[in-house]
């Protein structure tokens, strides 16, 4: 456990001590703020709950983009710079490496996500929002973020360089997002499976509206666990090769 914490802390400090981490943080916050201003805060009279729902909708997009950008370096950079050997030589296993890396990236994504809290507060200043909806929305964002980080971790575990890791992670993410679309053009039971497997549509919308859906929480936890497990298997197979 101590080794996992050390790995996560190093990963987090790598984001906090390099321009890369701050660049992602800045771009995501600016993007989030712009979209919030342009699309959620319109001139028309709207219920605060609807504005908040839109905020979480747009924030989910930036969360997923940030997830891919943060994870592209996780393992691919270690491989590119030759520092992977430090982890392979340490008396730790692949699961500890992957979980430590995941927690570090997820920690930084959580910081980015929670820094957007000023926007719901702005809605509260000009209207009336439920803190329950805010809490549920952020829980949804963090769940979606965890799943995205896990998907990106797999991309980074497979790829030899960071660019390929981003393309791979992003590709898997887009495929998982498109599930709802494919669900609409296919017949049951395939359509049911595809729409259930979709990362966003069915599972994120309840959180947007302030509802904590246990099924969706279990879904996001399963996706996170599944992709982390695949990442561990990839690292194990690399050691054996």
């Amino acid at each position, binding site marked *: 456990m101590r080794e996992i914490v050390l790995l996560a802390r190093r990963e987090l400090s790598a984001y906090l*001590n*390099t321009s890369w981490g701050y660049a992602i943080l800045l771009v995501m916050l600016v993007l989030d703020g712009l979209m919030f201003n342009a699309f959620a805060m319109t001139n028309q009279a709207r219920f605060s709950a609807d504005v908040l729902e839109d905020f979480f909708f747009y924030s989910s997009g930036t969360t997923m983009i940030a997830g891919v950008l943060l994870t592209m370096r996780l393992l691919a950079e270690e491989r590119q710079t030759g520092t992977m050997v*430090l982890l392979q030589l340490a*008396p730790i296993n692949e699961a500890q490496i992957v979980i430590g890396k995941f927690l570090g990236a997820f920690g930084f994504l959580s910081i980015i996500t929670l820094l957007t809290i000023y926007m719901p507060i702005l809605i509260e200043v000009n209207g009336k929002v439920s803190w329950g909806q805010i809490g549920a929305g952020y829980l949804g964002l963090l769940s979606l973020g965890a799943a995205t980080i896990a998907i990106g971790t797999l991309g980074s575990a497979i790829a030899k360089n960071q660019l390929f890791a981003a393309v791979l992670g992003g590709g898997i993410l887009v495929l998982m997002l498109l599930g709802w679309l494919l669900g609409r053009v296919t017949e049951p039971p395939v359509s049911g499976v595809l729409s259930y497997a979709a990362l966003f549509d069915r599972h994120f919308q309840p959180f947007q509206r302030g509802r904590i859906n246990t099924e969706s929480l279990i879904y996001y936890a399963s996706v996170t666990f599944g992709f982390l497990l695949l990442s561990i298997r990839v690292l194990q197979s690399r050691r*054996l090769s």
Partner: protein
Amino acid sequence: MIEVQSLSRFYGAHRAVSDVSFSIQANEVVGFLGLNGAGKSTTLKVIAGLLLPSSGTVVVDNVDMATAPVSFRSQIGFLPEDPPLHTEMTVTEFLTYLGGIRGMSGRDIAARLPVVIAACQLKGQEDRLIAELSHGFRKRVGIAQAIIHRPKLVILDEPISGLDPYQIVEMREVIRGLSSEATVLVSSHILSEISQTCDRLLVLHKGKLVATGSEEELAKRVSTSPLLEMTLISDLERLKSVLDAHDSVDDYKVVAQQDPYVKVEVQLNAEAHDDLIIAMVGAGIGVRRMVDAHGELEATFLNLTRGESA
């Protein structure tokens, strides 16, 4: 203390390392010698636990790589040719982090750091970012990470590559110093360095171990009749007449000629160096330089790898 038995490693159908066996005693400094592509790095990676062997066993201090891989890794310190460093960290942060993931407690790391810093001659660099360090210091930080957790075996792959002559001398001291607390396996293709730093040499050629022993022992194994490299001041005709007339000269070859110098390789049939020089000087030939080529480690090495004689 370190036992390598029948180690082989394949990459697909290509056999990179073939049936290599050797043992190393505690606190020995052993040189791993081989041409590029001889299989040195592959062998070292297998011994370090970074690659699984296709067959064979590696045991360090009674810990078998195959049966206790995690425990085995804690016995090993490894410096690859390009030091693996987190350049955004300071030297102290980097070593503290690595000590931590190698299972050391905070107190243990704090006690160990000054020892490692001193052993690797990194005093004064502790709080500098690794990105700011010179190549020589980076190599030393690479060694520091390899020994921070008190490994039983330290493996250094080409530790002096890319260093300037001053840094090489310092690195030699650092490597010799490591043997006080660990067994050291050093690979290099810079033969003179290996001979100055190591107690014993292992010569690898085309994935096979072709010889093992001290420099002198290896030289004896491949000893042939003396071969001299001479740089002389003479005209060619006079030189040829002296060499042709001398009983001890089996053969000779003019390697280069740039007036007034002639560089020649002379194969003797006996230890008759002095006689030959006297004959040359008596004939008015100036002797500018003479090297016993078979006394050189390079020649020994070339003979070993040429014949593949085990």
